[in-house]
């Protein structure tokens, strides 16, 4: 049984708020319309005296829910903190009112009063989340792949005190590194290849009692989610275990050199870089004239469009070693660009000192057999025009293809029934075999790599608790792969620590709320299971959604998707926002004071709006902003509520979508756009203009553009008749 909530409204008049609006009138709104149990005003609420006022009221039980009407929630967060058992909300009447509106104007007062009204119904609706903690969560880390990256992840997780299940499909550990002779330098002075120390890494793994190694093993199935990944293996003994997080380190395959017939791959004496490495490792003396062709089948739309970043350095290493093995050898390297970045430049410099290695820029090389020799002809060389080199051996430096790609894999559905996540599974190698309704493998970014889309957050894959590391994530050399694996192990450890606390991981790190489904009203429409960006919702045979909450990132896209509004969070619900929409004082039709509702994404659009305020730009006073966790959480019920309450226009301001999407919930703003377009039809039927709804993208740096963007829309809306549903 819940106690009746006692709302406290605390209104600050500092920072120019008191010069901009009548704070006493705001207090009256909070008490009368907002039904606050207690309302206080203060000239500096963030000061010691102001905070003490609130703390006393909380301690005495005079209030059980606190609304602070002052500055933005992005500041003073440590000051306005009254413990976990109090509902707390911040009403921003500083950046969004005092700093961006005309002081002492009637519409400014109306705006502030509306925010108080909205804030008071909001805390009434908010409940404190009860954390969801899965039963018997595990802190074991599963590492899939026993090459350099996988072994490094395992060792580092173990060093931090975590148990590891290391699963390797071959009969021995080592992966690709087992095929390497000498490796690239990874420390100063970067001037020579170094010993391949893979054997010592293997020894370290085998000797670590925290690491349980499964050789010759692959996955049979993985069900569950973060904290509760139930893994069963295929390896004779059919082992199974529970893991809390997964590091995916299954590595790469070299691009199939047989496809490079244009470069003579079918001719004798023409080999790929992998085979040449094997020859060097086996101590075979290389022939006298060797030509390396870099970017063989890379940076090439017919083969691999991307660059594999390592092949330049790796080829220089092989050239150097070939010359060591056969001092009579003369090596020619035909390149497009030598991409030895960072400290690898120093190695390039060293290799350039060898008079037996000649390097030239050359485009469109052609390899042919002439008599018993090979010839390589290239364009645009540094010598001008075309040039031909005769060779005994040609080495094609091929690129890296992630192990997650398998062109033979198809999805058994007709094309017109395929969802986006079905298309994501086409061509995906069967590795993880996740028991997820949206498909068994991690959706990738582009080109087959299960990488993160975010520059700032390299481990943010589309499946919670599964972190890619090493060359499966993107092409990289061994020392980078090692470091990458340590990072992935960190993320895995973080995940297994956060799940038993009921917390979600990045980007809403620490959020304890989670979606609750009122299943008695579910119509099994599957929209939530399809639209969840992270595949967090499974399905039963009757297509009822079964949320697996530890997979959830709390973006509330499911809440936005549900056409019957059965999904809600304790502190963020459809009825909460609906109440806020209906709470304002809507002017009469004949007052000619339009009202525009703007939903803003709290990650980009809201900070942009606040920065406009910080820079004292004027924002149109007829707009009321409601921040959302993600534009993907926008439920069409709110649009219906807004229109039926008389709002004249609605703006949806989210982040950029498309190929370079910014949304950390993948499709938030895109989904909002799609949903809004469906509403256009309803609007037309209701004889309301479809131009009353605007969807636009706002980046955090767009704050200068915001005033005009908003003004333009308000002008557009003002040109229409007032919403005839006002006053209904």
């Amino acid at each position, binding site marked *: 049984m819940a106690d009746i909530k006692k709302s406290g409204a605390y209104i600050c008049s500092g*920072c120019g708020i008191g010069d901009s609006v009548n704070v006493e009138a705001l207090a009256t709104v909070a008490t009368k319309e907002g039904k606050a149990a207690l309302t206080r005003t203060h*000239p*500096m609420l963030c*000061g010691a005296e102001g905070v003490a006022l609130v703390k006393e009221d909380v301690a005495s039980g005079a209030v059980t829910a606190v609304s602070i009407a002052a500055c933005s929630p*992005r*500041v003073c*967060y*440590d000051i306005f903190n009254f413990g976990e058992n109090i509902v707390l909300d911040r009403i921003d009447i500083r950046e969004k009112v005092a700093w961006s509106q005309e002081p002492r104007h009637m519409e400014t007062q109306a705006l502030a009063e509306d925010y108080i009204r909205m804030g008071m119904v909001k805390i009434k609706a908010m409940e404190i989340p009860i954390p969801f903690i899965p039963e018997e969560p595990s802190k074991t880390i599963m590492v899939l792949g026993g090459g350099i990256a996988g072994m490094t992840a395992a060792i*580092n997780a173990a060093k*931090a005190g975590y148990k590891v299940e290391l699963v390797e499909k071959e009969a021995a550990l080592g992966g690709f590194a087992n095929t390497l002779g000498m490796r690239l330098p990874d*420390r*100063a002075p970067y001037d020579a290849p170094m010993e391949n120390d893979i054997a010592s890494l293997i020894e370290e793994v085998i000797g670590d009692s*925290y690491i349980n190694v499964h050789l010759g093993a692959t996955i049979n199935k993985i069900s569950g989610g973060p904290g509760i990944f139930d893994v069963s293996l295929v390896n004779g003994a059919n082992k199974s275990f529970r893991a809390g997080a997964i590091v995916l380190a299954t590595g790469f395959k070299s691009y199939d050199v047989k496809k490079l017939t244009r470069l003579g791959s079918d001719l004798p004496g023409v080999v790929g870089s992998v085979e040449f490495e094997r020859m060097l490792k086996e101590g075979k003396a290389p022939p006298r004239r060797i030509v390396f062709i870099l970017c063989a089948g890379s940076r090439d739309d017919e083969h691999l*469009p*991307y*660059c594999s*970043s390592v092949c330049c350095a790796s080829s220089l290493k092989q050239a150097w070693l070939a010359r060591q093995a056969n001092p009579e050898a003369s090596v020619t390297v035909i390149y497009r*660009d*030598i*991409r*030895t*970045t*960072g*400290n690898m*430049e*120093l190695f390039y*410099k060293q290799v350039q000192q060898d008079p037996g290695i000649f390097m030239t*820029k050359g485009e469109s090389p052609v390899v042919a057999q002439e008599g018993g020799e090979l010839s390589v002809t290239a364009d645009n060389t*540094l010598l*001008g025009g075309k040039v031909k080199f005769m060779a005994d051996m040609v080495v094609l430096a091929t690129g890296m293809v992630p192990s997650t790609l398998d062109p033979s894999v198809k999805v058994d559905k007709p094309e017109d029934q395929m969802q986006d996540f079905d298309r994501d599974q086409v061509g995906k190698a069967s590795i993880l075999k996740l028991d997820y309704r949206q498909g068994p493998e991690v959706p990738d970014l582009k*080109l087959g790599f299960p990488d993160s889309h975010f*520059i*700032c957050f*390299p*481990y943010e894959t589309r499946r919670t608790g599964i972190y890619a590391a090493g060359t499966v994530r*993107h092409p990289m050399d061994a020392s980078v792969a090692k*470091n*990458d694996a*340590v*990072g992935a192990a*960190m993320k895995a*450890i*973080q995940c297994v620590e*956060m799940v038993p606390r009921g917390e979600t991981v*990045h*980007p809403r*790190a*620490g959020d304890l709320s989670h979606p609750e489904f009122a299943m008695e009203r579910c119509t099994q429409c599957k929209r939530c299971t399809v639209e969840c960006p992270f595949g967090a919702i499974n399905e039963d045979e009757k297509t009822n959604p079964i949320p697996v909450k530890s997979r959830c990132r709390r973006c509330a896209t499911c809440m936005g998707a549900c056409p019957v509004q059965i999904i809600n969070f304790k502190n963020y619900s459809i009825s909460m926002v609906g109440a806020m929409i209906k709470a304002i004082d809507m002017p009469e039709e004949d007052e000619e004071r339009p009202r525009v509702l703007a939903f803003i994404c709290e*990650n*980009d659009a809201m*900070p942009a709006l606040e*920065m406009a305020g910080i820079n004292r730009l004027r924002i149109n006073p007829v707009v009321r902003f409601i921040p959302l966790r993600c534009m993907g959480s926008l439920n069409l019920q709110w649009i219906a509520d807004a229109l039926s309450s008389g709002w004249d226009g609605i703006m949806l301001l989210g982040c*950029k979508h498309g190929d370079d999407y*910014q949304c*950390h919930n993948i499709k938030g703003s895109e989904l909002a756009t799609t949903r809004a377009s469906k509403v256009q039809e309803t609007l037309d039927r209701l004889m309301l203009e479809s131009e009353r709804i605007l969807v636009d993208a706002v*980046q*955090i*740096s767009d*704050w*200068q553009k915001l005033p005009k963007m908003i003004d333009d829309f308000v002008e557009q809306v003002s040109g229409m008749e007032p919403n005839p549903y006002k006053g209904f």
Partner: protein
Amino acid sequence: MNDNILVIGGGVAGVTAALEAAEMGRKVILVEREPYLGGRVIRMAKYFPKLCPPGCGMEINFRRLRANPRVTVMVDSEAVSITGAKGEFSATIKTKPRYVNEKCTACGDCEKVCPVERSDSFNYGMKKTKAVYLPDALAMPFRHAIDMDVCKGPECGECVKVCKYEAIDLAMEEKTTSVDISAVVHATGWKPYDASKIENLGYGQIKNVISNVEMERLASVSGPTAGKILRRDNGEPPKTVAMVQCAGSRDENHLPYCSSICCLVSIKHANYVREQYPDSEVYVFYIDLRAPGKYESFYRKAIDDPKIHFIKGKVARIEEDERGRAVVTAEDIIGGGKKRVACDLVVLATGMEPESKSTVPLLAKINSDGFIMEEMQGDAGLISCGVASGPFDVTTSTQNSTAAALKAVQAGVRR
């Protein structure tokens, strides 16, 4: 033994390392020399290849910081001594007086009355602020600071008179804090290589020759020209812009290594110019165009733009003509002969020099280029990340900072 972690440096690398360790459960002390977090990246307009604003990711990190009481942020601070060993270090941190305390609400009343101006270091000297200033609209912590080098002090005191919150304390003193930690993460970052040392390229003499970091400020909405790229002498829009790659890099006389990001930054700058001025022409003078890995497609898009010209050849010299334009003379290796282009603006793609080169971090060993040596990765409880470790891009820095967090966590574990 404790398991607290000290992170020195509050740029994107330090903030990342601190957050990753704190979210897992550790207490972290994050120390930053400047009055704000964000380091070099929040002074950039956009990141390559997505051309997205650095503020976006940084805002998420600030959000994570707000939600995590385990991180103690100390700005205006430097670690001045560290003693002890892995698992049991003791560090002394000095916090310089900011002369503005936590009561500051950033309302800005003080700025209006301050009589003194200063060169704005956030804007690489391209703009001025008052002696009392807010570092940036996205500054965290969001409060003002006073530059005591130029402030007139208590004899003026105009700011104190108008501050409603008693937030200004002109007598503020330095504070010293001691902390016990198990590991130290050096995330001290970089500074732009001083382009005036490259004698033949005219930086510092020719007004329209600027560095890549200055170009970022020109393109930034909070920069000296509100985001409009303009000639530095007469404020006119540029029609012809040149990027000079490897300016002072891959060069024994300057920085011998490649900074790995400058080619991509120049392609990004070419995008800025072309977007603002559809009739402009951009020349990129390069030695090797380094767009490795998946960045290749970013390069390809630039190649497809007929008004962006990639010319392989080292720039021999830059001279000023009578119209104030910067005339670039370079080899044209593929085309043959020389190329001479009169440009309205020339951007030197200068490299990154690690801060640790001029100020060796406590207990750290640096190599001859000033980067913290690779061997120093955890065994002694001392770790480095970000550009302190090597010349990396943002995505690699955040990746190796995440790794550094785990190394730091390990230092507090006895196994």
